[in-house]
């Protein structure tokens, strides 16, 4: 089961993401954004960072990278696609997830642990979590404030206390099918008690376990 971890110029959580997935025994490989063929990969992760410097709008430029055509193909085919933080923003810009992310209510970057509650367990990210399960995850974003005028977005996890103004306190959002998920906090940063929390494991385990079920 191979997972492609996409690297855009400006991405910076790619090595952490590979490290976390590897801890779970998954086979994760870095893929440069100019790659045009993801044949042989069973899932994709768009990691956090500042793709293309987040210039213009976060994720706006990245969604046109050559690799995104393949990401869209896999998403359509039902393969697990996960966007973490900046990856979430890119998935919204690409139209694979509803809504968009705008600056935090207080216009300040937020880097701290927040408490998140799982509200929907029928997605590739929350498959192995329990409904209502609470977890401590590191939030690390300036544009973490999700807005969805269409109100069609499926919220799969909410902040227990609203840190950034996100609509419906959404911390993670999925598409209809549940195979494309974006999450603002960083599960890959919550893999070790020594670093303050291992609550991210259940999420990434959910993701790796759903790789099997790809057509």
């Amino acid at each position, binding site marked *: 089961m191979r997972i492609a971890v996409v690297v855009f110029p400006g991405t910076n959580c790619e090595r952490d993401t590979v490290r976390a997935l590897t801890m779970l025994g998954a086979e994760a490989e870095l893929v440069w954004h100019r790659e045009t063929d993801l044949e042989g990969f069973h899932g994709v992760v768009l990691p956090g960072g500042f793709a293309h410097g987040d210039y*213009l709008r976060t994720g*706006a430029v990245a969604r046109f990278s050559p690799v995104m055509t393949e990401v869209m193909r896999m998403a359509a085919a039902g393969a697990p696609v996960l966007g973490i933080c900046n990856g979430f923003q890119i998935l919204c810009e690409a139209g694979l997830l509803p*809504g*968009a992310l*705008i600056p935090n209510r207080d216009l300040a970057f937020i880097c701290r642990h927040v408490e998140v509650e799982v509200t929907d367990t029928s997605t590739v990210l929350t498959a192995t979590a329990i409904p209502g399960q609470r977890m401590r995850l590191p939030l690390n974003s300036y544009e973490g*404030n999700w*807005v969805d005028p269409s109100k069609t977005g499926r919220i799969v996890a909410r902040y227990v206390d609203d840190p950034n*103004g996100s609509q419906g306190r959404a911390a993670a959002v999925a598409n209809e099918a549940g195979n494309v998920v974006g999450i603002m906090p960083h599960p890959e940063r919550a893999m070790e008690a020594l670093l303050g929390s291992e609550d991210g494991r259940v999420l990434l385990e959910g993701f790796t376990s759903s790789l099997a079920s790809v057509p």
Partner: protein
Amino acid sequence: MRVTVNITRRPEISDPQGTTVKRALRDLGYSSVDDVRIDRTIHLEVEGDDPEAVRETVSDMCRRLLANPVLEDFEVVLG
């Protein structure tokens, strides 16, 4: 040819920046400020002499990259 694109945030979308700036202005004593909205203006230098063709190209750029339809409306002004 010089082209200006005005990108405005949809009214129904919250505008944390505008809200914060309004508060800051009032804190500074400008009580006469009722509303603040902050938009993006993009100045482009585009080759081509057929105004309509240029307008079309730039509108196209807006639809694809410069504006986010979920959040924003855009207006292309030639010259």
